[in-house]
């Protein structure tokens, strides 16, 4: 066991040094095949319907990954900041409903953030914090667009200039999410 553990550790140290080196800008092309994550969808176990519907709406146009915030309840005390730095590797992070705000409270991300169907403001982005909510939820403020048919969201520039979209009428909120993601990416 001792010899085996030594080998594992030597391999691990070599790998760490190698990964750090390869992550330098001059070697970035080596990671091209890995492909960056476009969207991280952050949800709790209770929000599986929203998670699935968002995944379906975003379709094959984007590389989407999921993160279940319930994992944080069983992680060690560094779990929160590790979750944030993991999510920041995506170009957009979508937080579904209230649970992420409670478990990642006070975090500010260095990537674009979409708050989906929550009016809470415990999560923010240094780049762009965007609210996408249905008519029962009031976003915290800013430039709000009310969308009822989708025509309001057909111009990417209009979305990028907004801080929130409140979906009303016949427009499907998941279809609106796809339009917002496409505009913000």
């Amino acid at each position, binding site marked *: *066991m*001792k010899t085996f*553990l*030594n080998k*594992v*550790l030597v391999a*691990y*140290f070599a*790998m*760490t*040094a190698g*990964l*750090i080196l390869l*992550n*330098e*800008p001059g070697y970035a092309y080596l*990671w091209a095949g*890995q492909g960056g*994550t476009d969207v*991280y969808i952050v949800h*709790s*176990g*209770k929000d599986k319907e929203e998670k699935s519907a968002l995944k379906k709406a975003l379709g094959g146009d984007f590389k989407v*990954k*999921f993160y*279940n915030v*319930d*994992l944080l*309840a*069983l*992680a*060690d*005390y*560094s779990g929160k*900041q*590790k979750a*944030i*730095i*993991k*999510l*920041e*590797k*995506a170009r957009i992070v979508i937080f579904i409903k209230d649970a992420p705000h409670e478990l990642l409270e*006070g975090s500010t991300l*260095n990537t674009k953030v979409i708050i989906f169907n929550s009016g809470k403001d415990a999560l923010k982005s240094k780049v762009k914090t965007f609210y996408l909510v249905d008519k029962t939820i009031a976003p915290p403020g800013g430039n709000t667009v009310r969308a009822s048919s989708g025509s309001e969201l057909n111009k990417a520039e209009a979305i990028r200039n907004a801080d929130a979209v409140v979906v009303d009428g016949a427009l499907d909120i998941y279809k609106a999410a796809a339009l917002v993601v496409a505009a913000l990416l």
Partner: protein
Amino acid sequence: MKTKNTGHYLTRAILYIILPGMLCGLLAQSSIRISGYGNTHLMDHDGTPNLTGRELDKSFIQLREFSLFFDMAITDAIIASTELEASNNGNDYTANYAYVDIQATDNLSFRVGKLLVPFLSYNENKPNFKQNLMSQPFTAWNLAPVVPVPIEFHGVGWSDAGAMVNWNTFIEDVGLLDVKLAVINGLGSESNVLDDNAVQLNDGAGLPYVRPRDGLIQNDEASELIDNNGNKATVIKIAFKTLAFPMDAGLSWYRGKWDNNDSKNLEMLGGHFNWLSRNWTFKGEYVVAAVEQDAGLDPVAAAGLSGPSSINTTVGNYNMSAYYAEASATPFHWDNSRYLKFVARYDAVDTNDKAVFNPFDRSRITVGLEWQLGKNTRLRYEYQRSTINDFDKAPAPYKNAGGNETIEMHMPSLIFSF
């Protein structure tokens, strides 16, 4: 044959490869986050015995911990992390953990390096900005091996070098099942008894040494991550988080040889429970440890100390147990970030020392009050009252040195996190 190579390699690798590597990473790219916490407190005891060179009843102000967390995302699936902690008024610096996480699938990850031992709940959630009280429960520092006697308190958690596999699965509409399996160097002792610590009382006369059974301590070498034998310890933690309630519970198990000759087992089994809601928390842990060791040895002599032992010689194999139950209520909230919280905890440790007297066989009541001034700053006050079991058997030197049946402690503190 006694080997120290693994520990030497690990320690040096952490010091000379991981930390400099992370520093290089910091300079090379921007996917790094720095966060942390710190606290300072006034600690005022009454009823403790005088020790040679230190009177524990004298109050003191201490910078207890100042920690910086460094997390570097190499990709979203590979994250290197470390926590550097200054403790004991900045006189001790420790990397509480330094490891790399590799996420293999959504449900499976690997962690290698110096890691927090996944045993019970408290050890993985030790920082006081995550806890309701400053003082650690007996399960965490008086039994599940974390720190030695208070005079040598360094405030660090239980971490060790090794590797861990973490697997989890979601059970539809029910909750999350999480399993951690770690192989680590394990606990050890160079002497023939595991709890070989000894302190010298100052009773104004004979300066006798006594052995407080102070927990299944990591000896000096083990605390430097250098193992005293070739055996590797195994730790398993199985936890479950419900979806319906803010509740989780779990079982933990540890087994490893602790002696130089790979012949004596230390085995621990424990359980934990947490209910963590906005206005109420309930927490508890129970742990029992079974230690194999030879009978008849004088632990004071075994520790290489001279002078008479006024307590006991070892009785061989023994079991210890400890538990705590804690509740908090937060009835007052302001501005989403300010609150006032009331806390109470009861904990007890059974050293099962079979000695005439053991000052560390005791129970304790702790009550506390916490005021969160702002998003990242808290004022906390706690009062403790410990009661030593079988104090009528306390030897004269212990009483002459000022030791009482009850020990009281007041501790106001200031905590910040960022």
